[in-house]
């Protein structure tokens, strides 16, 4: 019994680790899409940030410098996205795809040219990474039944970026629903003309949303290469940006439901790892690919309106044209 409980706790612990980049990237997508800009480029921004962070941390030996560089590069790509689809009113999806492809290529090309390890960055020492912190009394709490192990295994013992990701969710909620900026952000995603009429800059709001998205993707990427792992490897994000996008849609563009979607997707991923090659009674070897595909299948089903309804911000995807003839 105690073993089963520990197994559940360890799976939850793994869930949190896998879900962290999803949460950060999904909140990034939320800001962007709530302002009316589709963000397919979450994947590319995360990937570029992961590379920039690992490369910087490897050279400087500082994880924080890595974080700074990761965020800067990600914001840079977000601004490029804005330049293409806010300033030049280009297609938002195409711009996002471009960012993903450029990031996929540049991280490998620069990685090989700078570090000569086939696209890997040098392995980081513990001092150049975000390492795990035990929360106070974690070991002492272990002896308390039920809650003790939960505290020690799941809640304690993560790196600071995990806690940051968890803090970002209520913060996002507060910003989007309780501040003036959030009200305007939601308005500009639904009806930019009304916001414009009120004398507020649509362009300014959308650029700010993209900068926030860039920051969050930067943290997510940094987490991957300097906290979750100790180096950057090619194509490190492996679709996590798209999964975050799916989680955001699954959470209907709302912070708290999105958090739960990220945790659900993270849990499925953790389960898939755990069940790999495990022989189960009756069904035999479990098709883990089903678990891996489930987030995407669920999102498609949800989008199709078969379970609840997911409605995107109304102005999402359309560039704003100020004057009409």
């Amino acid at each position, binding site marked *: 019994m105690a073993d089963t409980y520990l197994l559940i706790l360890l799976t939850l612990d793994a869930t949190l680790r896998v879900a962290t980049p999803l949460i950060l990237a999904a909140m990034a997508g939320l800001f962007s899409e709530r302002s009316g800009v*589709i963000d*397919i480029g979450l994947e590319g921004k995360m990937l570029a940030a992961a590379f920039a962070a690992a490369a910087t941390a490897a050279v400087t030996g500082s994880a924080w410098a890595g974080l700074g560089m990761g965020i800067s590069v990600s914001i840079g790509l977000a601004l*490029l996205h804005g*330049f*293409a*689809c806010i300033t*030049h*009113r*280009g*297609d938002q*999806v*195409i*711009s996002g*795809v*471009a*960012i*993903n*492809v*450029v*990031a*996929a*290529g*540049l991280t*490998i*090309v*620069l990685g*090989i*040219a700078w570090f000569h390890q086939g*696209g890997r960055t040098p392995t980081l020492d513990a001092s150049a990474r975000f390492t795990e912190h035990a929360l106070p009394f974690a070991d002492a709490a272990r002896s308390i039944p039920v809650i003790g192990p939960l505290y020690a295994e799941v809640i304690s013992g993560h790196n600071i970026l995990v806690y940051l990701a968890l803090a970002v969710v209520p913060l996002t909620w507060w910003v989007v629903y309780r501040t003036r900026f959030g009200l305007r952000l939601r308005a500009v995603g639904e009806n930019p003309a009304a916001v414009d009429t009120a004398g507020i800059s649509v362009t300014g709001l959308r650029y700010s949303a993209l900068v926030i998205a860039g920051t969050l993707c930067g943290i997510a990427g940094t987490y991957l290469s300097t906290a979750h792992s100790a180096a950057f490897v090619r194509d490190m994000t492996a*679709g996590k940006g*798209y999964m975050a*996008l*799916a989680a955001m*849609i699954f959470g209907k563009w709302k912070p708290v439901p999105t958090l739960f979607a990220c945790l659900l997707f993270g849990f499925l991923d953790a389960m898939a790892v755990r069940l790999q090659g495990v022989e189960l009674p009756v069904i035999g*070897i479990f*098709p883990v*690919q*089903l678990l*891996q*595909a489930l987030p*995407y*299948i669920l*999102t*498609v089903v949800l*989008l*199709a*309106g*078969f379970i609840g309804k997911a409605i*995107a911000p109304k102005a999402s995807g359309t560039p704003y*044209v*100020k*004057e*009409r*003839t």
Partner: protein
Amino acid sequence: MSQPIKLPKWVDVGVIPALNILAALAVSALVILSLGENPIEALDVMLYGAFGYDEAIGYTLYYTTNFIFTGLAVAVAFHAGLFNIGGEGQAYIGGLGVGLVILALDGLLPWYALLPLAMLGAAVFGGIWAAVPGWLQAYRGSHIVITTIMFNFIASALMVYLLVNVMIKPGQMSPESREFAESAWLPMAHQMFAVIGIDVSRSPLNLSFVLALIASVLVAIFIWRTRWGYAIRTVGRNETAAIYAGIDPKKTIFWTMALSGMLAGMVGINEIMGVQHKLLLNFTAGYGFTGIAVALMGRNHPIGIVLASLLFGTLYQGGAELDFEFEQITRDMVIVIQGFIILFSGALAYMFNPLVARLIGRLMPARG
């Protein structure tokens, strides 16, 4: 600058695309320069790698074949105003269709009898993989971009499951099906040339290249010379107008996506029936995504798409040569170039319009 700027047609189809591509190549050249290599030299190496000897030409055209199919797939959807980002998954599943047909019949029928059946397999499987998102977009209002992305991932999981658990050749570690009987292989270019007495080096180039060219012609006729093509273009321009013209936009969206998926599925003919001769993982290798760049660069016109495919074929084959000749750059540079082409020919397609319009205004004073 709020209104779209009206430019003469020759500028719109000639000058602007050329400027966009030049911008993409210029930025790529800057990347190469910043890594301490000479971009002109790199271009030289790539051109030699792509065209310098007959085996290289074969490889270049083999890559071109895949890009023509995926480029056409993306373009057909674009004409209906749909962004099919799922060419990768549709090509993957299309290949599954090809594989299933051949695995079932390869001892019984020769390749020329199998080819129509395999193409049917590719069309049905690839077509369905695109038609479902099309149906969801038309009748359930789900966003086609998101659904097709999701379908890429679902396709990938499905293929891993099938190859690891179901279709794997017994007693083998790597997740691949058994090899097809040799009688089911599509004729290779070097074999076809040998028949007429010309000696050509072995390369993966096969009959599919001809099929791709035929497909381009058919798509051109279909889009601009048939009522279905007219329906697709009308829906793409203005759905309301389409309804007034008696066109059902929902049905059109569904069938356009099906057609798009069929074209993407034809990658399976080239890869599975023509080159690999067995089902295996990841044979699509990003060709579906490159199709987006190809369609954007080719301005959704089959002639443009064939030319853009040739350029990407050149980049893919020539890029392989970079690994051997340069210390600092590898074939992955091709992905960077591809990204910049999508950026400049797609997302920033209109960036140069005001500039060019001003230039033309100055050179050719108003003629009324």
